[in-house]
């Protein structure tokens, strides 16, 4: 602990209180550090465990060794079967699972703060239905013209998500730009797009099975190329959201109060909304629509860690990533060799835990 050694004389009493303040501040930072460390260790252990799961059995110790070799040699030893399987098949998948889990949870956390509504999730701005609509359209035309491009679905999803989001934003801004305007505009746009989806699928029922996997959410068949895109598209917005966490705290006080504290509310909200749209779009692009995480994880974290976004955003990211990875391991193993839809598994794991927390903390809890 270093005291200022400048020429100004600081009274002894102030010095003593300053050191007390420093101690308390260190306490808060330590809390954050402990949560981060525990979370990262948990994620690493689960990550290695997830690498052992699959048709080709690999022991935990072997998986650890393979991972270590891959990191040290900047790639797998192509003569070693387990290393190849881990590097080419299992690692990209688990990386995607972690990023999407963290991304959805943070997106939900920020959305709930911006719109001040506990029932909001990252999809409320029309992102999911826009993406789904575009994917359905692309799948139908793809089948009819017989061209199968691996990039078609994710690109369509991102375009659909961003377009639907832009539409929602425009409607909300015209309607006054209040928090409620975003919710209402999002609900209206989503409903319209879902209805269009239903009609298209109804008239093309035979091709429906092809896009079922995407609509239920799935992490199967992801490669490193996909993982790079997902990681960049989620981790960068999460970091930006974390840097905005102080402003998110201020926005909780309401628009007028935030302005009295020197925040340009409209501008900040716009930046955050665009950020969330990008984040959510990359989350749905390859893996489809996975609900629950974005809605529930932020509430769970608020109940446990409190409402300060400086703590809440990193915690949501870690808990979201962990829950998603557990769900992915479960959906790979429970009905092996076939896979269960991850969206449903996430809910099956999450609901009892959330119910427990609600019963325990619900009386005290406000968003």
């Amino acid at each position, binding site marked *: 602990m270093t005291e200022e050694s400048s020429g100004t004389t600081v009274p002894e009493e*102030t010095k003593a*209180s*300053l050191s007390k*303040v*420093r101690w*308390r*501040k260190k306490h808060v*930072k330590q809390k954050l550090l402990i949560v981060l460390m525990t979370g990262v260790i948990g994620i690493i252990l689960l990550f290695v465990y997830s690498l052992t799961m699959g048709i080709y059995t690999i022991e935990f110790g072997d998986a650890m060794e393979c991972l270590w070799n891959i990191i040290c040699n900047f790639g797998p030893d192509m003569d070693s079967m387990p290393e190849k399987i881990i590097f080419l098949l299992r690692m990209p998948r688990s990386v995607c699972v972690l990023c999407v889990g963290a991304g959805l949870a943070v997106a939900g956390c920020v959305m709930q*703060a911006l719109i*001040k509504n506990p029932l909001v999730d990252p999809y409320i701005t029309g992102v999911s239905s826009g993406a789904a609509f575009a994917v359905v359209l692309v799948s139908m035309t793809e089948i009819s013209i017989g061209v199968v491009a691996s990039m078609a679905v994710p690109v369509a999803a991102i375009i659909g998500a961003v377009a639907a989001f832009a539409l929602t934003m425009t409607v909300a801004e015209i309607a006054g730009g209040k928090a409620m305007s975003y919710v209402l505009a999002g609900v209206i746009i989503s409903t319209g797009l879902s209805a269009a989806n239903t009609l298209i699928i109804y008239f093309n029922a035979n091709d429906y099975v092809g896009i079922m996997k995407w609509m239920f959410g799935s992490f199967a068949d992801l490669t490193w190329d996909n993982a790079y895109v997902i990681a960049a598209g989620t981790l960068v917005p999460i970091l930006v959201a974390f*840097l905005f*966490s*102080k402003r998110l*705290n*201020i926005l*909780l*006080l*309401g628009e*007028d*109060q935030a*302005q*009295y*504290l*020197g*925040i*340009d509310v409209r501008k900040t909200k716009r930046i955050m909304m665009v950020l969330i749209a990008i984040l959510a779009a990359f989350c749905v692009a390859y893996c489809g629509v996975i609900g629950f995480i974005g809605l529930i994880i932020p509430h769970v974290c*608020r*109940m446990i860690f*409190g*409402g*300060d976004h*400086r703590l809440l955003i990193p915690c949501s990211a870690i808990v979201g990533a962990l829950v998603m990875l557990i769900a992915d391991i479960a959906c790979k193993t429970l009905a092996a060799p076939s896979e269960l839809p991850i969206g449903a598994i996430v809910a099956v794991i999450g609901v009892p835990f959330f119910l427990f927390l609600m019963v325990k903390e619900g009386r*005290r*809890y*406000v*968003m």
Partner: protein
Amino acid sequence: MSCDPTITVDGLVFGYKKGKNNLNGVNFAIDQGEVVALLGPNGSGKTTMMRCINRVVKISEGKVVIDGTDLSTLSREGISRMCTTVPADVPTDFSLTLKEFVSLGRSPYVTGWLWESDEDMLLIERTMEDFGILHYADRRLSELSSGERARALLAKGVVQEPKVMMVDEPSAHLDVKYKIQVMEMLRDLAAKGFTIIMASHDLNLVTRYCDKVMLLSKGAIIAYGAPAEVVTSEAIKEVFDIDVKVITDHGIPYIIPTPPEDADEGDVRDA
């Protein structure tokens, strides 16, 4: 500079809708350390005036000068260091602790991306101690009583260190004891150099605790001056459209509403 007023409002015109002004050319000046009360019926422009001074809304004409600086030349953050508004109450539908809440008041000065400096935290804790809420620091806002929340709101305004603190109906939700407590706190703040503008509906508290009273009606100032000069039964009748008796005790006017039948007794003064 000591003789210049802290805040000068010059020809302020503003309307929420085009063609209908909620404030029609308001002019006034307030010296440092004064407590000024805005009195007027609902819709007379009290809150609107505060919003205009704070630049939450864009004024159509006129200017606001605080401490020699025209607010229109300042950024939003710059304005937030000059003046702020303490609302009557705060939404409690979020999980911030009392300390986190008060700390938000310091944010116009926090330069780091995430954390307040040690000096900022010291100021925050000392202010909370002054307001007697430091021992609730880790309680959630939703768990506090309205009296404790009123003190938290004032503490948040104080750590913002504005030159001019506007307080919107500080006693609206409080019982008599807390009302008086809050008014005493405002007087203490004024003694420390804060200039305070307060909107209120509580006529008698205002005349007891404020240096000056500004009577507002339909977006214009009807009268502005010391309570004893401004608060007369005629002025109250004009602004609020009620019949009152004004009784003066130790130079402070007290207002007693009279039922319509004995209104013709008029202005009875005991002194």
